[in-house]
């Protein structure tokens, strides 16, 4: 069965943008996709690009804050997905230039 998250993407987009704004300049942007995890469970995969300074000096502080704020605004249980979070710095993304993270 398709989770509620699939049909509520505009609401999710809005909440994600709120978190982005709240955490600037440490967080440059947040991208996400909904799909199945390794075990076949529905999940939402967040890709977070951080400033170089945040990644180098305050990685855990900022990462924990991102995870907490997303969880505060999005009810993952109701959305039927488990959240996963991955991070990279701005300069790493500038080198790797992956569209999914841009």
């Amino acid at each position, binding site marked *: 069965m398709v989770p509620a998250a699939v049909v509520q993407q505009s609401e999710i987009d809005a909440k994600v943008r709120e978190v982005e704004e709240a955490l600037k300049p440490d967080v440059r942007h947040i991208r996400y996709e909904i799909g199945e*995890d*390794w*075990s076949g*469970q529905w*999940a939402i995969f967040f890709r977070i690009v*951080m400033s170089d300074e945040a*990644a180098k000096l305050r*990685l*855990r502080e900022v*990462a924990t804050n991102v995870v907490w704020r997303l969880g505060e605004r999005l009810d993952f249980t109701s959305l039927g997905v*488990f959240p*996963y*979070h*991955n*991070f*990279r*710095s701005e300069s*790493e*993304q500038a080198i*790797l230039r*992956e569209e999914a993270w841009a």
Partner: protein
Amino acid sequence: MAFADDLLKDAHHLAARGGNNPKQSSLRRAVSTAYYALFHLLIADFTANWGVIGERSRLGRMFEHRKMSSAVLKLQDKNNPTLVEIELKKIVSAFTQLQEDRYKADYDVGWIWSRTDVNNTLAIADEAFKTWRSIRKEKPVQHHLMSMFGARH
């Protein structure tokens, strides 16, 4: 717990290899090893309860990755979790994140790891080790460990 601690140290060692230009192979092994460190930490604690020391490794091999992450965390009062339950929830989230990361590291060759992401993964594992050791003897924690083994509620 020496084996789990050694694995976690290995993960850090692998992540630090290559200076500013790490190989994907080192980063991938670091992520995978961090997951297995936590996996073996939990298993070692579970099997330590088994009286026949020589059979503990066999018991440990009965753990399944999928069952461990899909075990449902039962809170006494979901609107008012205890401090131990809050900490346990963090470990469950850390384990699930590390498990997905490990899958990507071992099987998804299209996924490119960055040093930042790997450092974050290792920090999650470090925190999970520390938290686990502070609450491991608590009743709800042992109960959830039994659920991770596959026991029904």
